């Protein structure tokens, strides 16, 4: 059975160019980049090249890039590192729709006496900037607001949010795991202090990420030990992963236009056809300011897990914000925060595309999905 992959916000395939680039660093060029000998030095040189590639897509300096093991580590490093460096400030401001890597980390600070404020969003998932402005004060150590939401694709005005944070003397961090590689970011033209990225969301391998830390930003290292990453993140580097991330950034920068032409066009075709054929649907997220690859559709009166498993019978991979797929009993915290009614939240399905998604694959979903929705609605006691 063929696989029709529409779950690229969960993870992406490693692109061929990245795979070719990293292969020698497992069995041939396996030296430790910190070693004094030339064998390790060659790996160190390649890591410097990767740092430059990451800095290029972010529009920052090489020295402002710290390699980590994943987006979650980058988020933790930013939030914990800033809080520890500013012990007199006991407030953290975030949004209610963050990824758990941010939300759970922020909430853990309440156990240490911190005031953690979660700013709300409207029905389209758009950040309430007035509420953010009210929440940030002189006691705020860090404001952390995501760049683009992983479930709905809604893009947040992080440059404006950074200005609000700075007006009160707080450090601003953004989790840009879903946006880097899909839409432009430019740290040279922004006030953002810290920004997290994750390799496997942009066709690099899993197990590698990076954190941009603007020069002059005080933070306390989170992992201590050796002097890797200029003493800001100890631990022998995941050389192959880092090299993969660098190459993936280079490829993403080169191909970014595809995201806003080919990928967006296919996403729109899928969305329009599904809405027309299935009826009683709603799009979750901001239709005017959304990642070009993401659509989150709620199918009223049916449940998301059933839809996913029926799609899976045809090899179609998607994701759901319904409670039943997660093991939790409540639907996605993002959809709840947006005020999506329970009748719709339970039946939400996210399709996330990539540059590898083909029109034939989209047509296949358009062919297979409507009969599934019809069948499940026939089963429902509410229809």
């Amino acid at each position, binding site marked *: 059975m063929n696989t029709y992959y529409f779950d690229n916000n969960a993870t992406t395939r490693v692109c061929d160019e990245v795979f070719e680039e990293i292969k020698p660093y497992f069995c041939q060029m396996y030296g430790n980049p910190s070693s004094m000998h030339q064998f390790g030095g060659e790996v160190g040189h390649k890591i410097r090249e990767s740092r430059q590639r990451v800095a290029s897509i972010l529009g920052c300096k090489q020295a402002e890039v710290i390699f980590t093991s994943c987006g979650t580590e980058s988020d933790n490093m930013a939030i914990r590192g800033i809080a520890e460096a500013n012990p007199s400030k006991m407030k953290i401001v975030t949004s*209610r729709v963050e990824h758990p890597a941010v939300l759970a980390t922020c909430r853990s600070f309440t156990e240490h006496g911190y005031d953690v404020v979660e700013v*709300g969003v409207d*029905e389209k998932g758009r950040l309430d900037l007035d509420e953010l402005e009210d929440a940030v004060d002189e006691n705020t150590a860090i404001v952390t607001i995501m760049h683009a939401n992983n479930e709905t694709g809604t893009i947040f005005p992080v440059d404006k949010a950074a200005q609000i944070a700075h007006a009160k003397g707080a450090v601003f961090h953004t989790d840009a795991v879903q946006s880097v590689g899909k839409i432009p970011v430019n740290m040279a033209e922004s006030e953002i202090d810290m920004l997290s990225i994750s390799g496997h969301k942009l066709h690099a391998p899993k197990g590698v990420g990076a954190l941009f830390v603007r020069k002059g930003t005080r933070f306390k290292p989170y992992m201590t030990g050796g002097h890797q990453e200029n003493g800001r993140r100890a631990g022998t580097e995941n050389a192959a992963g880092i090299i993969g991330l660098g190459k993936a950034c280079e490829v993403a920068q080169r191909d970014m236009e595809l995201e806003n032409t080919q990928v967006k066009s296919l996403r729109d075709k899928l969305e329009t056809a599904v809405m027309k054929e299935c009826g009683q649907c709603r799009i979750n997220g901001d239709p005017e300011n959304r990642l070009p690859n993401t659509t989150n559709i709620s199918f009223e*009166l*049916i*449940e998301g*897990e*059933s839809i996913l*498993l*029926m799609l*899976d*019978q045809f090899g179609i991979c998607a994701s759901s914000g*319904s*409670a*039943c*797929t997660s*093991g*939790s*009993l*409540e*639907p996605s915290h993002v959809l*709840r*925060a*947006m*005020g*999506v*009614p*329970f*009748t719709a939240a*339970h039946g939400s399905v996210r399709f996330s595309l990539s540059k590898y998604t083909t029109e034939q694959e989209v047509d296949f979903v358009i062919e297979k999905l409507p009969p599934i929705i019809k069948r499940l609605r*026939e*089963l*429902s*006691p*509410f229809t």
Partner: protein
Amino acid sequence: MWDYTDKVKDHFLNPQNVGEIENPDGVGQVGSLACGDALKLMFKVDAEGRIADVKFKTFGCASAIASASALTEIIKGMKIEEAAKVTNKDIAEFLGGLPDQKMHCSVMGREALEAAIDNYKTGTTQTHELKGKVVCKCFGITEEEIKRIVRENNLTDVDEVMNYCKAGGGCRACRPEIAEIIEGITGSKADAGEKPYEKPQKLTNIQKIQLIQKCIDEQIRPALRADGGDLELIDVIGDEVIVAFRGMCAGCPSSKITMKDVVEARLHEFVSDDLTVVQEK
């Protein structure tokens, strides 16, 4: 992905006895859209008192559909007295087991069957009424229901209870009480798990008003707005919270129920049990 047995997958993809029966002898409906799963079960009884035909409709996940399908296969041909003895365990065993977190689907099957048999016997359409003290306010689960599930399934901790009936899976405030219920039955200490939300012990008037406003903004308003309504906090006088419904809620015949079951319940949960909510005159 859940680790479903082949039989669960088969009953999910090829559910048996789907549909409705014209003039059924017994009908039972449990669950709701808000809870995330619901089941409507109906049957016809023959002259010998056997279930001659049975159909269902369900809203829910794969295990909810499979459990409903399995239930219909189990009870078809049974005498009513035999069917009344079918438990959620029988449904789960018929399917070769369900993941722990999905056991509530089998419980929903048993509840729908009980409701349908009751309807058959009394001739009235049964609605799921809450009898006794409600322990889990998020999912409307009573102390009696929890006790029954603990006894029937030999449950020993709060997470297991949550898996079987959802109690304790929402705001989690009731988890210590569920642990006490388990301890009362098993005689052994039950871990309540994650620390529940703790209401502030003492509030100044300003703190109270701020907390009420925060609760309305975060816990109540999103749900009302989703249905085209809204709520405005007018004043707080002592423990009396004066509110005004707006939009669709303003003219809604159910606004009194919303005020007690949603607004007041949430304020009790997150602010103080002493608050009383009244509408602006």
